């Protein structure tokens, strides 16, 4: 049984493991590759970190880049709410 995979395949599996369940053979290939490949181990950890960061951004725990309603937009929305509310 050949479990050897290339770094390019490792990258694909490391990503897909976040979107679907890998089968036992894929998981074993990944584990074996990571034992010997420092760059790919970094990749896997960095993808984990990226996923965690994106999740907190999605949960609104992090302010995504100065996205603020400007005064004009605020006023337009306020007026439309008043029209509806009255």
């Amino acid at each position, binding site marked *: 049984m050949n479990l050897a995979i290339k*770094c390019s395949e490792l990258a694909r599996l490391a990503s897909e493991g976040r979107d679907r369940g890998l089968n036992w053979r894929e998981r074993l290939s990944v584990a074996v590759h990571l034992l010997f490949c420092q760059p*790919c181990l*970094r990749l896997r950890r960095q993808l984990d970190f990226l996923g965690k*960061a994106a999740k907190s951004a*999605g949960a609104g725990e992090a302010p*995504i880049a100065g996205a603020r309603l400007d005064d004009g937009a*605020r006023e337009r929305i*306020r007026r439309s709410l008043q029209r509806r509310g009255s």
Partner: protein
Amino acid sequence: MGVGVGALTPLSPGQAAAAADPAAWLDVHGDALYAYALTRVRVPAVAEDMVQETLLAALGSADRFRGESTERTWLIGILKHKVLDHLRRSIREQPLDEQVEEDTGHVAGYFDHTGHWADQPGAWGDPEGALQQEQFWNVLSDCMERLPERLRTLYALRELDGLETEELMRVLNISSRNNLWVMLSRTRLQLRQCLEANWFSP
């Protein structure tokens, strides 16, 4: 009933409707709603419209807000439906070009022809600390902005909102699971590289 206790008691539906104050929602949650929409639809005018529609919808259904979630969560929930509807509609008008994604392949640029890294991932030290720094979120946001629009939308729905494969295929009208996963893989590699270049080892 003491005033302090009353403040902590969940509002009954009738009370909630009476207490509905869209102007206050706009003041308190406006920026958060706008940021949520803008991260997913990118066009400021569209994001503004969605905030407005969300508050109007909230005004019409305030009696359904029972204080079981926070006001912010309730409003974001309404907005999320509007964002997904909008994306469904715009994707129908301009479908993702799956074939292009497939042909380009996700390995392009990152690996050499033998499948080894063309440019190895560098050491990021302790990345957790970055989560506490506002500047990091600006960099992450810039990196997302640089993605092709369809990949950015896909990534936001997958990682920010946690949509699963089947739902993503439906919303984005993608017919092949494999293409979807390959597109996500490409997107993550691009974001990783962008963060490394602009934050971890600039």
